[in-house]
């Protein structure tokens, strides 16, 4: 690096910088640490003016209680079922459509991509108030299927939007070559294009799974008793002890930490900024 005479900041920066990086990382991770720590804290440690920041004698009693109580399994199963079904259906519906859009002329393609993006920005309440009243009339409240249908509202524009980009990356030459060899268009899509795009489809599917796993608003609108995990966390916030709330929340984030670990390689700056709803 070229030295500039007036650049007196250079040397102190080199010393302060690592501390600064460690500090930023610490601050970003602190809430997650806090959650996991509280979930294993013994009851007394959190009371008083200065709740403990470290647990010297971790206890699993709250984990045992939350798991043993049995009101964890039904929400866990519902969340797993809804997230997985939503993901499968979203892929099945969005893949063919996104493929067609990716092969349109650029003006049309651009227009549709923007339309998908805008659809994703609509406030859920503007859709949900009507959907919830209709679903109530159809007996879809408290059912997993009703929630899957609602989650697809948010998931479809989002996954289709990602997949258009993915399919644009699949070269057309391959399709033309296969077509000359006599392959039908459906065969080209299922045997050539989809396998090539599979890594991209997998990443998009993981995002959908995460969205459904975390989703709260539609779940709240469409549930009276059969909670999903996020609703169970809310219930624990409302009625439970701190440790109980932290434990249920930890159950919810553990699979996510795993998924994010697998996703991180695909999160290049710019590529997915804005892809995930805040």
């Amino acid at each position, binding site marked *: 690096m*070229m030295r500039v005479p007036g650049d007196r900041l250079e040397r102190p920066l080199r010393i302060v910088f690592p501390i600064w990086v460690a500090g930023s990382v610490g601050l970003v991770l602190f809430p997650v640490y806090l959650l996991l720590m509280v979930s294993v804290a013994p009851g007394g440690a959190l009371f008083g003016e200065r709740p403990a920041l470290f647990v010297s004698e971790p206890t699993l009693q709250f984990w045992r209680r939350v798991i043993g109580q049995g009101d964890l399994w039904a929400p866990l199963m519902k969340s797993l079922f809804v997230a997985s079904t939503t993901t499968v259906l979203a892929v099945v519906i969005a893949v063919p459509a996104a493929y067609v859009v990716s092969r349109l002329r650029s003006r049309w393609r651009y227009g549709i991509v923007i339309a998908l993006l805008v659809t994703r920005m609509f406030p859920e309440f503007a859709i949900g108030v009507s959907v919830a009243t209709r679903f109530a009339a159809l007996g879809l409240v408290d059912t997993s299927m009703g929630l899957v249908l609602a989650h697809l509202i948010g998931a479809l524009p989002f996954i289709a939007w990602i997949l258009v980009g993915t399919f644009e990356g699949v070269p057309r030459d391959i399709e033309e070559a296969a077509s000359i060899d006599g392959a039908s268009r459906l065969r080209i899509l299922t045997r050539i294009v989809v396998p090539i795009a599979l890594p991209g489809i997998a990443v998009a599917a993981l995002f959908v799974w995460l969205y459904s796993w975390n989703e709260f608003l539609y779940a709240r609108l469409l549930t009276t008793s059969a909670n999903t995990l996020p609703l169970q966390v809310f219930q624990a916030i409302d009625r439970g002890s701190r440790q109980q709330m932290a434990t249920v929340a930890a159950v919810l984030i553990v699979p996510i930490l795993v998924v994010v670990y697998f996703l991180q390689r695909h999160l290049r700056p710019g590529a997915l900024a804005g892809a995930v709803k805040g």
Partner: protein
Amino acid sequence: MPRGGVSALAAARRWVVAQRFEIALVCPLAGYVLLLTALPILDTLRISLTAPASGDFPSLVNYGALAGSDLFGQALRNTVIVVAMSLALELVVGLGLALTLHGRFPFRGLVRTIVLVPMGVPTIVSGAVMLLVFSRAGYLNSLGYHVADLVNHLPGVEWRFAPFSWTVAGGWRTLFTVAVADMWKVLPIVTLIFLAGLQAVPEELYDAARVDGATRWQRFTRITLPLLLPYVTMAVILRAIDAFRIFELALVLSGRVEPVLGTFIWNRYAPPTSDVFGAAAASVVLFGLIMVCIVLYLRRVAMPGEVRL
């Protein structure tokens, strides 16, 4: 005329036959969006224009009720305050974090991965954590006690720290906790946008500036910031769209004292109020606010010919 109509019909039919493969593939998605997004929005609009008692349509009764409601005015004001605070926090912290991660240092890949973690944490969980931090017996007050201890070691200083519960205090304090929770949750996204911007600045510009003797601070204010401006615009609009929709965090952290639009709509909709009409009208207002942001986004950020995001 009839012949023209017939030939147009025939042309349409030929087009459909020729494109039947494409049409069949697009139909499920198009149908879904039409049936479960477009239609419900129109239906919400219809509900909002229906008079609850008489069933008259169209009627502006529900909007009149909103306009006369102090609670709605408060929710609207609180939403704008939360959006503004949250955006300000995100821009400053996100830019700081992006600048940090842009440098070269050991374990940079690992650090960048770790910084993405909040993105995966469900909003409701980040609300739960902030409750631990900001409640009366929470960690922020605990920090206050520790600081007071330190300060009291100084000779001649006596300061008694008075704790407060941020989440139920009401006013800006409660809204601030919502903004902080929102900031933490979306920090990775804002940071990724700024990182993309930083990486788009050509290295030659910095080299040239160095040759001309510009200091680090000058290079930052004269090169980095101006070139980052489009990304700031993008981050602000995208995040504003999300922030207007804020619901879970407000429900958990401020629901009982300071409603925002999201919680206001929920409280209208849910029992015991069960006022679908009021909820629908407020939803339409929220929709309008967000549409303004979307139009801004399309004009400022998503310029034709270049698909950004």
